[in-house]
Structure formats: structure tokens, C-alpha cells
């Protein structure tokens, strides 16, 4: 095959193709190397995603009206419909634009921003002590994880060491929070798959945990309990009995869930084989948490890059095989069991001592001492009006929230407020996996898949 080359004068002349000459010389075919379609197992996830990822690239305000007169089912027309932002699937204000051919989803586009609260800008206006009230409202199903990551970032910047009891209390509260979040997820997931009983069961369990949180922290949700320097207050008397009762009751109730959902044929048919994602795709999309573990990658920050005292407790990392919706459900359910295991070990091993760092620049003095000591009063005043001032620097810390890797990138400029506070929200990044997951599924599966991704729109939109 020859190639035509146009010279500057406009005349065309043909040039012998070097490939022809080479072929003639070598007597064999040339290869197009990277231009050939490689077998699937050698095609990396990025290329697969770009070729067939199923992302609908359409502006949000594009016309979504379907003219029924022009729509022809027989010809295989596609239509674009809207799911949300107000819809009964109780995962918050998420809008998904779907391109459908009949019942099959071809392409999808999640549209977010309906809950954008400007929390990162608010974080620049609040002091380090006030900052936890802001971040706790991001992932409102696991507020203690948000507070934990913010406090860890501030403590890295300050360079304070915490007493062991503070660390173990934090671990207890975040694991109880994980149980709470997964139980709520199981409840709403069951509700989305039309098992209303599961909703009632899940919220019943949730009340047990919420009353413990209220007893310890003062609030059911959005607790502002884990603060830089430790925790706000010590565990109340009798907490061991409460936690023991919680652990026992929930372990028994998990058997109820197994009976209600895991063994039930309708649930299994609706979730098995639905919304499969490969490990390479998960890693390429940055998905973390149960989505990544269900697809087979054994990555859990508590085990791989331990923080708090997770290297001193014994627990398993639950890993799935297929990466479908059922695996994600099973991973979360078993993570509840593992969290109960951790909670029991914390019960046994909880050290005594201070529940917050005894550094007057970081933690306020006990309220009783304010009446007695002038210095205590001054420290209290300084801390609550202006607060701690970490030296300049930047840091990124991450914890394993029930949804995945929750990170906080904080830049300090020497004043009492962060210069930049960014939270890496797991659901924000996990939502990118939604188009590949939804591709070629049915509309009925859309809800199941969306629910199994477990987005919490508070942290998606911040």
C-alpha cells in the first residue's frame, strides 16, 4: 500500500512505503504492535475503561425529554432518563443519568453536588478545636471516623503523643461506629431490595449503639467526641457491661440477617452476578473499602498501614472472590463480625490512664480545675477562643472508614486555623466505579448496585 504525500506546491507524488520495502526484504508481515487489539488479559484497566467503561458524557442540563411519538422500541432506540436526586433509594441526593435500551442500561453518569456544603471552605474559617464539628457532618453514617482522621492530621502537625487509653477509646468508638454504619447499610440495602423487615431490624440494632453513643458522647449522631489531643470525655461507668451487651446482641442478630437475606433465594438471585467489577478496574478507579476487598484485593488500612492500636488486636481482613453485589454484602456483614471481635479485645485490653494528652496547649483542663487555678482558666480561655497553633507544614493521613480510605490533607501555616483542609472522601472516588458497574445491567439491578456501592452523599459533596 502506498501513501500519498502532498508537497508544498500542491502536487501529489507517491512515495514507496517503507513497510513494503521491509516486507520485501524480510519476506514476512510487519506488526502494528501497540495498535493491535491485544487479548483482554493483557489490556490494562485504563484502556478497557476508556473503550467500554460506559460513562455517559453528556452535560447535566441536557434535554432529558423523550418524545413518545418518535421513540421506536422495535428499532432499538435508546433513551436517557433521570434517577434522582429525589428518589426512594435512601442513599441521599444522588442523581444518575441513565441511557437505556429497553430495560438495559448502556451508559450512566452520576451527577453530584446536590449536597455541596462548602465544608472545606468552612474548615479554613474554624479553629482546629472547632474543626471536628465541621468534618463530623461529612460522612454522617460514621461521624467518629471523620473526627478521627481530622484529629490524627492535627496531631501529626502538632507532634503530640497520645496516652494509650485515648488511643484505645478511639479504637473502641470507631469500631462501634463501623458496626453502626454497616448495620445501617444492611438495613437500607434490604429496604432497596424490598425487604422492609431488614430496615426495621437494622434500625433496631442501631438504637442500641446510638444509646451507647449518647451515654458516652452526649449525642446520637455527629458526636464531636474525638478531638485533637484525645477524646472529649472519659467512658462512663458501666461501659463494659453496655459494650458487652451490644457485642452479644448484635452477634446474635446477625444470624437473623443471615436467615432473612443471605439464604433467601430472591435476594441471592438479585445480587449474585450483578455488578461485577474486576480488581484491576477497582485499582484503576481508586475504589477502596468493601468494593476493593470484595473484588479480591486484600487491602485494609487497619492491617496494611496500621494506625491507632490496630496492630495490637487480632482480626481478619474479609476478601471476596467475584466482586459482585453479593460479595460486597457478604464482606460488610462479615466485617461486622470482625468489628465485634475487635471490640471484645478492646474490652479486655483497655488500659487505664488519661483519656487525652496532658498538654495544656492542646487539650483543655478539667472543668473543675478552672475554679481553682488561674492558669487553668487562662488555658481554657486561650484554647477555646484561639486554640492550638501547629507549626507550618502539610500532612496527609488516612484511616479505614466503613466506606474505604478516608484521608485528610491538611496544610498548616502557623496560625490557629488550617490553611487548607481537604478530606479525601471514599464515596466520592468510589462513585466513579458506578458507570462500569451499571453497564449492561437491568434497571432493577441499578438500585441493587447503587446500594452496594454505599455512597454517603455528605462526604461525596462535602
Amino acid at each position: 500500500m502506498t501513501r500519498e504525500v502532498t508537497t508544498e506546491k500542491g502536487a501529489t507524488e507517491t512515495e514507496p512505503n517503507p513497510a513494503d520495502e521491509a516486507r520485501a526484504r524480510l519476506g514476512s508481515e510487519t506488526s502494528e504492535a501497540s495498535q493491535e487489539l491485544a487479548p483482554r488479559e493483557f489490556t490494562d484497566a485504563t484502556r478497557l475503561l476508556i473503550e467500554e467503561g460506559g460513562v455517559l458524557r453528556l452535560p447535566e442540563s441536557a434535554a432529558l425529554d423523550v418524545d413518545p411519538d418518535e421513540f421506536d422500541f422495535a428499532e432499538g432506540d435508546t433513551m436517557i432518563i433521570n434517577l434522582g436526586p429525589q428518589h426512594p433509594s435512601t442513599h441521599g441526593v444522588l442523581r444518575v443519568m441513565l441511557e437505556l435500551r429497553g430495560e438495559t442500561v448502556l451508559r450512566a453518569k452520576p451527577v453530584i453536588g446536590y449536597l455541596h456544603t462548602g465544608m472545606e471552605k468552612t474548615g479554613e474559617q474554624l479553629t482546629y478545636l472547632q474543626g471536628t464539628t465541621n468534618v463530623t457532618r461529612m460522612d454522617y453514617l460514621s461521624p467518629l471516623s471523620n473526627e478521627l482522621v481530622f484529629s490524627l492530621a492535627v496531631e501529626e502537625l502538632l507532634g503530640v503523643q497520645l496516652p494509650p487509653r485515648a488511643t484505645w477509646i478511639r479504637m473502641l468508638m470507631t469500631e462501634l461506629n463501623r458496626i453502626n454504619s454497616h448495620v445501617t447499610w444492611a438495613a437500607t440495602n434490604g429496604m432497596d431490595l424490598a425487604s422492609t423487615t431488614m430496615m426495621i431490624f437494622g434500625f433496631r440494632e442501631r438504637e442500641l449503639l446510638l444509646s451507647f453513643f449518647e451515654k458516652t458522647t452526649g449525642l446520637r449522631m455527629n458526636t464531636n467526641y474525638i478531638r485533637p489531643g484525645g477524646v472529649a470525655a472519659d467512658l462512663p461507668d458501666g461501659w463494659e457491661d453496655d459494650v458487652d451487651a451490644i457485642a452479644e446482641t448484635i452477634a446474635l442478630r446477625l444470624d437473623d440477617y443471615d436467615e432473612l437475606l443471605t439464604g433467601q433465594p430472591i435476594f441471592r438471585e438479585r445480587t449474585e452476578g450483578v455488578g461485577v467489577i474486576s480488581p484491576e478496574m477497582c485499582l484503576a478507579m481508586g475504589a477502596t473499602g468493601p468494593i476493593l476487598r470484595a473484588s479480591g484485593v486484600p487491602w485494609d488500612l487497619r492491617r496494611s498501614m496500621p494506625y491507632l492500636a490496630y496492630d495490637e488486636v487480632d482480626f481478619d481482613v474479609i476478601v471476596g472472590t467475584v466482586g459482585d453485589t453479593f460479595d460486597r454484602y457478604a464482606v460488610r456483614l462479615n466485617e461486622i463480625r470482625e468489628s465485634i471481635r475487635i471490640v471484645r479485645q478492646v474490652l479486655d485490653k483497655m488500659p487505664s490512664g488519661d483519656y487525652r494528652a496532658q498538654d495544656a496547649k492542646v487539650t483543655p483542663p478539667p472543668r473543675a480545675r478552672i475554679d481553682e487555678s488561674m492558669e487553668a482558666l487562662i488555658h481554657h480561655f486561650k484554647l477555646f477562643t484561639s486554640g492550638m497553633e501547629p507549626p507550618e507544614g502539610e500532612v496527609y493521613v488516612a484511616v479505614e472508614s466503613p466506606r474505604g480510605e478516608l484521608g485528610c490533607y491538611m496544610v498548616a501555616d502557623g496560625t490557629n486555623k488550617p490553611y487548607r483542609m481537604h478530606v479525601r472522601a471514599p464515596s466520592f472516588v468510589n462513585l466513579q466505579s458506578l458507570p462500569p458497574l451499571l453497564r449492561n445491567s437491568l434497571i432493577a439491578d441499578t438500585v441493587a448496585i447503587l446500594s452496594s456501592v454505599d455512597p454517603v452523599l455528605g462526604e461525596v459533596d462535602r
Partner: protein
Amino acid sequence: MTETAPPATGVVAPASVAHGIAGLGDVPVSFSRGQEVLHPARDRYVAVAQALKEAAFVTCSDLTATDYLTAQEARALPEGVTAERFEVVTTLLSHERRLRLRLRVQVPETDATCPTLFFLYPGTENLEREVFDLFGIDFVGHPDMTRILMPEEWEGHPLRKDYGMGRVPVQFKDAPGPR
């Protein structure tokens, strides 16, 4: 390699991992609280990320930006790095090494663009859109450079330091401005 701040108590500053990775060239490296930070120039950004991807940094944890309009003196950068108004901060994670590396790319105000990492790490799609939405930094080559959090017709980039808070006056607290 410069030590920008003392690491957390009891932690020894780790040896630089970046110096052991092929293909990075002579990227300036610094440490902040014991965490390693690379400062590639904007035109070397994708090449550095590619080299790190081949060195088993399998996933991009986070991609965000900072506006240093009001704190130019506050940050300590290694030699060879000119400070600009914006910085794009990318965190890459390696499962094998159990390590994170941060890349900080300086982006000037007058030419607020940056190459995209979408073709290396598709998981940066939403993250880069968010940076565009809130800071106004355009990512060259991104398939869908539109607003993601604010409404489509919103004007302005909220997380910039010269964008006001948008407060309304309330009792005992007058109108706009930081607290």
C-alpha cells in the same frame, strides 16, 4: 533533599524512596512530618507519575489543590522549585511498599492549567473535576472538564482565597468575612 519540618516525636525521618526509583530524574524531594513529597515541574508531572506507576504505585489516593495566595512565605520548598499561586497535590499509593508518595506541582495563576492523570489513573476523573470546579485549574486532556459540585452556571471558583465566604449577616455578627 530538604527537611522542611521536624517529624513527629519518636519517628526518624525515613530515607528517600524516590531516589531509588528509576525514571524520576532529578525531581526535588522534601519531607514534611516524615512524609516524602516530590516536587516535579509541571511539564515533568505526567512522566514522574508514569514512572511511579511502573514502580508499583498502583492507585492514586487523592488529587487536590491549594491556593497559596495569602501565604506565599509560609511554605518551605526545596531549591529548584519556584513557588506559584496554586499547587496541585497528588497522593499515590503503593500496596507492595505500603507507602504513600505525594507530588506537589506548582501551577501559576496566569496559566492555570495542568496535564491530566486520567489516562494513567482513571480514578482521578472526579478529583480533577472537583479541582477545576473549586479552583479553576484546567486539566488538559481530561475527557469531561465541567463543574461537578457547584451548579453548571455558577460563576467563580469558591475555594480560591479571593472568593468570599458568602455569609449572610446574622444577629451579633455582621456581614461577610471570616470569623
